[in-house]
């Protein structure tokens, strides 16, 4: 059986039950593929031992790129390409460049973050994201367990473990 293809899917009604269930399931040595929730659940990152996102680092890099680009652009435009005297200041003077630099820093950081987030979350435009259960966008918390990775346990064992942990429904889902 290939990994990342066949899953057992537990559906939870309540986030408190879900948080306790995650602890129980992981305590039994089962690796959880991922959990999908309609809203942010406090403490779920710790419960799943998810490492902190590196998105802020990307944001910083994009921001710095914006700062550098903005300064280079303005110094080149107003200092070399088309020098203009405005208010008797030097052609390339720093203070009037700051607002544009600030705006470009924010713009590139924001757009870069959005792009990075989409790519990192597997939401590329040419790829339709996998849905384990559509109700995870409505009112259910959905937990996916990869069967291949947890081959130490049988399907029935996993099903009953999910039931015991508070899942209101247990399904199977396979992707091509």
């Amino acid at each position, binding site marked *: 059986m290939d990994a990342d293809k066949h899953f057992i899917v537990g559906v939870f009604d309540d986030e408190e039950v879900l948080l306790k269930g995650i602890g129980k399931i992981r305590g039994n040595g089962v690796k959880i593929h991922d959990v999908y929730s309609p809203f942010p659940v406090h*403490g779920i990152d710790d419960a799943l031992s998810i490492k902190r996102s590196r998105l802020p680092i990307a944001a910083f890099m994009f921001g710095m790129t914006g700062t550098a680009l903005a300064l280079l652009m303005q110094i080149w435009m107003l200092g070399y390409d088309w020098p203009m005297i405005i*208010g008797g200041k030097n052609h390339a003077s720093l203070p*009037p460049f*700051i*607002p544009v630099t600030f705006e470009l820093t924010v713009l590139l950081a924001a757009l870069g973050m959005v792009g990075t987030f989409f790519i990192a979350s597997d939401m590329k435009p040419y790829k339709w994201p996998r849905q384990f259960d559509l109700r995870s966008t409505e009112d259910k918390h959905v937990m996916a367990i990869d069967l291949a990775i947890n081959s130490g346990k049988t399907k029935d064992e996993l099903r009953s473990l999910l039931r015991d942990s508070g899942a209101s429904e247990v399904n199977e889902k396979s992707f091509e």
Partner: protein
Amino acid sequence: MAAEVHLQEERYIFKPTLRRNIFIFLIIGVVVFGLGLFLAMRSEGQGEAAGHGTKGHASVEATHDMTASLQHETQDEDTAADQHKTEGGAHHESDSWVKRLFTTLWMNNVFFTGLGIIGLFFVAIQYAAQAGWSSGIKRIPLAMGSWIPYAGVLMIGLWFLVKGDLFHWSHSGLFDANGPEFDPIINGKGGFFYWPLAKGTFPAFFMGRMVIFFGMWFLFFTWIKREMLQEDLAGGVTTTHWLKARKFSTWFLLFFAVSSSVSAWDWVMSIDTHWFSTMFGWYMFASWWVTGLAFITLVVVFLKDAGYLKIVNANHLHDLGKFVFAFSIFWTYIWFGQFLLIYYANIPEETVYFIERMKTAPYSWIFFANLFLNFVLPFLLFMTRDAKRHMTMLKVVCPIVIIGHWLDFFNMITPGVMHFEGGVGFLEIGTAMIFMSAFLLVVLTALSKMPLFGKNHPMLEESLHHHI
């Protein structure tokens, strides 16, 4: 959620060792102050320009030439200095060292007034915003508010002492249309200080505002504090006092919105009487506010270090750190908003303010250090999440911000009085140490007289579960 947590009341004990250390700090401050005063008096005897390099002097001359044609005030100062040398102090202004002493006293009092009033402002914001996360730490800013009456008495008392040297507009000759000193610009602003009395007499409007501001601040402080402490005496969690405190807070915020701006014009901007900036009220508020936030954070961190405030965890520290980070940027935004417009418009009456501070010897390094300490360092050091959650980093950045903004206030006030004879020396540092020890003694004593958090606060439970 979890069952209701019942918390034991916690009290801060102002230990004699800490009190002794603060007194030692105070004594060192007095010694440094005395040394500074002695040095200032001695350098006076050796000529007024002692200690200025030739380069600095050249730029001073250049600016003098520039400003003299633009600003009657500077011209007046020049003649004052000349008169001083020839006639031996016949002019109404004091010796340079006296002016320097008055300037640093006034500057430190304005700075520490800010720390006190920001304590109350922080508490009021938390009530008005119905914030839950901060309910465990609100007593620390509340204790800072205890400084308000002392600051008020000092401010009113000091004013009568320093007015002739700091506040150029307090000279009656400026308003005498036939006199040699008549200044049409200051005369136009006279009503703002002297109404309803005649210009050049007693500044009734100015003094009235000062008294009313401190009076109302103290009154609001008393009301909000009363509600917070009565809440402790209630049998259990109650919203009665919280609602009343929120009402007082809202009215206080309305009052503070006006009074903070007007006090900035009165106590700081009117020193450079000819100059004005529509950003100034915000600018001084921003400086006060971020200093206050850094001070609150620092006290919380030290209390936690001493084993108090177990209910405060990394999440609350993170929020305080974000406050300092965000408002360091806010201050920079206001700073730049004021600077850029004046820089670009290039109107001489406005530009002179920055030429004095940015391009002349004693203030230039402070002008740039100000940006470095108050923007670059907090911005870079506080950028990551971990930096704001760990006490070590908070202990590094918060003092930088406090010292940085002290220099900011120094540069707001000193150049307008001392012109090219000012500077940060033993006198200024000693005065700051004396004020800091007095402020700490008042605040920590007030803190030790009340529980460290309100155990009946309706949002304490929320604060315990605060998670970001």
